[in-house]
């Protein structure tokens, strides 16, 4: 057993784990974060995507011990404390960016990561940016629409800091 501690969705957890425990197993089976799902055994589908220290990773392809000391955000940690959905969640809902919903937690986390780097992606950049996430239902069209809508709403949302206000002024149409 190896002692690890990590912050998941804002809460710190200390646990003893077997070194072979995958991060996704730890999140789901130990911490109850079942919003993060497993869709494949081959590191391809991306449905298990979480943010590890701020960037997207496939949690089925990381050992829990590798995440020792890290800050992890899962789909369950995106909404505000008051339950208000993250703009990417809202956009997937409104644009119908899902059918069965299995790929959705990973799609949303990957989209959050993409929009952090590129707040105004083109269609092409969205498709490339989400190449690590597979969807067997939607044909991706509405997913691309949802990411555009989320980008738009994040760029024009009411900024909470004075620096944000200045930055947002330039992009508000």
């Amino acid at each position, binding site marked *: 057993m*190896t002692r690890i501690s990590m912050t998941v969705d804002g809460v710190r957890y200390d646990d003893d784990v*077997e*070194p*072979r*425990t*995958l991060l996704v*197993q730890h999140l789901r089976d130990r911490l109850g974060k079942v919003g993060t799902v497993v869709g494949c*055994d*081959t*590191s*391809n589908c*991306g449905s298990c*995507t979480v943010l*590890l220290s701020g*960037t*997207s*990773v*496939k949690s*089925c*392809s*990381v*050992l829990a*011990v*590798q995440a*020792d000391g890290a800050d992890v955000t899962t789909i369950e940690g995106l909404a505000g404390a008051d339950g208000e959905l993250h703009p990417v969640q809202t956009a997937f809902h409104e644009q119908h960016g899902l059918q069965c919903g299995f790929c959705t937690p990973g799609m949303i986390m*990957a989209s959050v*990561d*993409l929009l952090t780097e590129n707040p105004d992606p083109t269609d092409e950049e969205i*498709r*490339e*940016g989400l*190449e*690590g*996430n597979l969807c067997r239902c939607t044909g991706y069209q509405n997913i691309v629409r949802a990411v555009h809508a989320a980008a738009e709403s994040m760029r024009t949302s009411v900024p909470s800091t004075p620096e944000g206000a200045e930055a947002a002024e330039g992009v508000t149409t």
Partner: protein
Amino acid sequence: MIPAAFDYTKAASVEDAVTALAAAGDDGKVLAGGQSLLPMLRLRLAAPAMLVDLGGLAELRGVHDDGDALRIGAMTTHDEVMRDPLVHEHAPLIAQAAETVGDRQIRHLGTFGGSLAHADPAGDLPGVALALDAVMSVVGPSGVRDVPASDFFVDYFTTALGPGDVLVSVRVPKLTGWSTHYEKFHQLAQSWSVVGVAAAVRRSNGSIAEARVALTNMGVTPVRARGVEEALTGAPATADAVADAAARALEGASPLTDGTASAEYRTQLAPVLTRRAVMAAGGV
């Protein structure tokens, strides 16, 4: 699936890693980004008894200016490499290949050194290292040694690294006045190269003064296309001359048949992709 049980240690220094690996012998394995190793452990294609994690070694991360060369730490991720200003200035071929690796999630964790050490024939960085005459800096039980790329890739998934060896950094000579291109042919987004071609070209007036070309997935190891390089040296920078030179891409190559493509298919692809890579690199 879940990997078979193993012991785990997080190395506190390179020496610490070498000691732990040497003690484990053939049963020990380095864990870098885990983006090749974890899938193999999960499918139980590998079952090492001891994993030595280099994840805590900040000294193995980053790109440094070493005068006439760059020194790239083995644990620098694909994502870091492809954004690094020194890489863009002095070895853009590495950035061009790194950005074709897998997807964002894989590039956030997978490392430059891990790709070289893994030596997958379909891996995109080994061919680039070969084309750029990179030199691997290795620390092992008997000390530090330098291994040129031409001696590093030994066989299918096999390098000059022995038990107890850690690849710590890679020295990449700066190319000044060259332009480069990595041409990758793959069937799906996110997937590996069926064939890839790394090309670097130095032009002088209307002709090609020098060229470096290496092929991905045209053999068990990356292949330096010396015949193409020879034919390009001094050739006019025209589409015809490049096509003639590219026809020699198969010299020294012995492509495999695998689940993705047949050897025959790869044989057809290599000259075409070589032509495209050299044209793009040379601005022809």
